[in-house]
């Protein structure tokens, strides 16, 4: 683990152009200190996912660079796990095989990996579902499995791309609480992408606002000084939360309106 002051991930002057014509990001910069939870909010279509894919090393930026614990990122970001918006469990593997996947890819023996996966299934409340196939689980349960799949590899950085967008409100709140618990126990750096300001503030230490696309960039960063551990059920009633919400919404509002006008 790195010292707490060193940024776990730095995005410097990231510009990304698709197909030589559409510039999704322009000079976007962001850094996350080790162990912090950073949310990135922005209107739909502002290049949030592009930014995350660049941080993951799945895309290499047209200009600018990504630094991971001070080192320039080339190729896939090996210290990061990625939780996708869509279902990313392999449908032809059972839940425990899916959770064990990251360990198997790293060369662990199958029985050892499966045993470790079973432990994680218990932790995320999927005891007894290990031998089910993903299609047999509910949306929320699939997300729990995806969380276990990410965290089992003991990543230093977790990248999350609107992971709970498809869930109903109450399931989503439970999942958010569970993410906070997992994060609180292991202390990774989290980069969490969302278009919902409520979620962004409730979870994060820092909320970064991305401007409307095209040519999006980070226009503001707000520190969220709500105390931890947080109780997400009641946090929306906290006056400090409401104050932060009004302040950040002031920035985001403009961008959302711009994204409407752009349609």
């Amino acid at each position, binding site marked *: 683990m790195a010292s707490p002051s060193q940024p776990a991930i730095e995005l410097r002057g990231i510009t990304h152009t698709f197909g030589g014509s559409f510039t999704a990001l322009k000079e976007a910069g962001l850094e996350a200190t080790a162990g912090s939870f950073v949310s990135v909010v922005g209107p739909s279509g502002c290049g949030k996912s592009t930014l995350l894919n660049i941080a*993951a090393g*799945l895309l290499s930026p047209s200009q600018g660079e990504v630094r991971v614990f001070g080192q320039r990122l080339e190729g*896939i*970001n*090996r210290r*990061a*796990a*990625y939780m*996708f918006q*869509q*279902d*990313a469990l*392999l*449908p*032809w*593997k059972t839940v425990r095989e899916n959770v064990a*996947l*990251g360990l*198997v*890819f*790293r060369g662990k023996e199958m029985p050892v990996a499966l045993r470790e996966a079973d432990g994680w299934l218990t932790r995320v409340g999927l005891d007894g579902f290990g031998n089910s*196939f*993903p*299609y047999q689980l509910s949306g929320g349960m699939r997300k729990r499995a995806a969380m276990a*799949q990410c965290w089992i*590899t003991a990543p230093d950085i977790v990248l999350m791309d609107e992971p709970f967008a498809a869930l109903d409100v109450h399931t989503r709140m439970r999942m958010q609480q569970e993410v906070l618990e997992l994060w609180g126990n292991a202390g990774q750096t989290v980069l969490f992408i969302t278009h919902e300001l409520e979620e962004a503030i409730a979870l994060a230490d820092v909320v970064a606002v991305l401007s409307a696309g095209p040519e999006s960039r980070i226009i503001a960063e707000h520190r969220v000084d709500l105390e931890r551990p947080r109780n997400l059920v009641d946090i929306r009633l906290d006056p400090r939360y409401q104050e932060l919400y009004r302040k950040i919404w002031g920035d985001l509002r403009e961008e959302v309106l711009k994204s409407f006008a752009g349609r």
Partner: protein
Amino acid sequence: MWQLAVGVAALGAWEGGVRAGLLDQFFFSRPSDIGARLGEWLRSGSIWAHLGTTLAEAALAFLIGVALGVAMGFALARMPRLAAVLDPYIRIANALPRVVLAPIFLLWFGLGIWSKVALGVTVVFFIVFFNTWQGVREVDPVLVNNARMLGASERQLTRHVLLPSALSWIFSSLHISIGFAMIAVVVGEYLGASRGVGYLIAQAEGVFDTTGVFAGMAVLAAVVLAVGAGVNRLELWLLRWKPRVPDSTYQ
């Protein structure tokens, strides 16, 4: 019940038509004669050697064709540039009517089983190849990205993601290619062989023995159906991770 009724009615009409003199027995034979011939073949055991040869040829053609088809399908799907270069040649090769190759293969590989196997391979290969190619290209990119983020190497990606994902495509082609492998092999035997069901049919035809021709056809149909049922069970097991959709077409 209705399915059975249709079969019985058709065979009954055939038998009755011949007995009533509406159909010429010389050209159309009779179900009862065909049945008797099949019984004779089974009793004397003469059919087994022929059937064994045909099945061995078809199995070899099928296995070699599938192996080459899957390998090539993968290679081209993973190497788009190579695919672009080879594309016109693949199209030309596939446009060729395979039957005209049979005499050439006879010259190249002789009258034994390998000329038939080669003909079968050319048929099976293209069906499997195109389906594999398509299957690999249509893999959900999220699954690929997720596996890469979890640390999959190129080989692990193929084994855990691409191959299983292409499997349902490959399977849909197996049903067709088994039938085609049989057809190709029988055509090969028909044109020149000393053994096999196709040879049997050609012999019967040579002496205007329509009963023998029909009996040979019945044997082939039964074998293809039996093998198809086997593939179905294998498919059901290998694709057990898929939610079952009620199948309304065949049951």
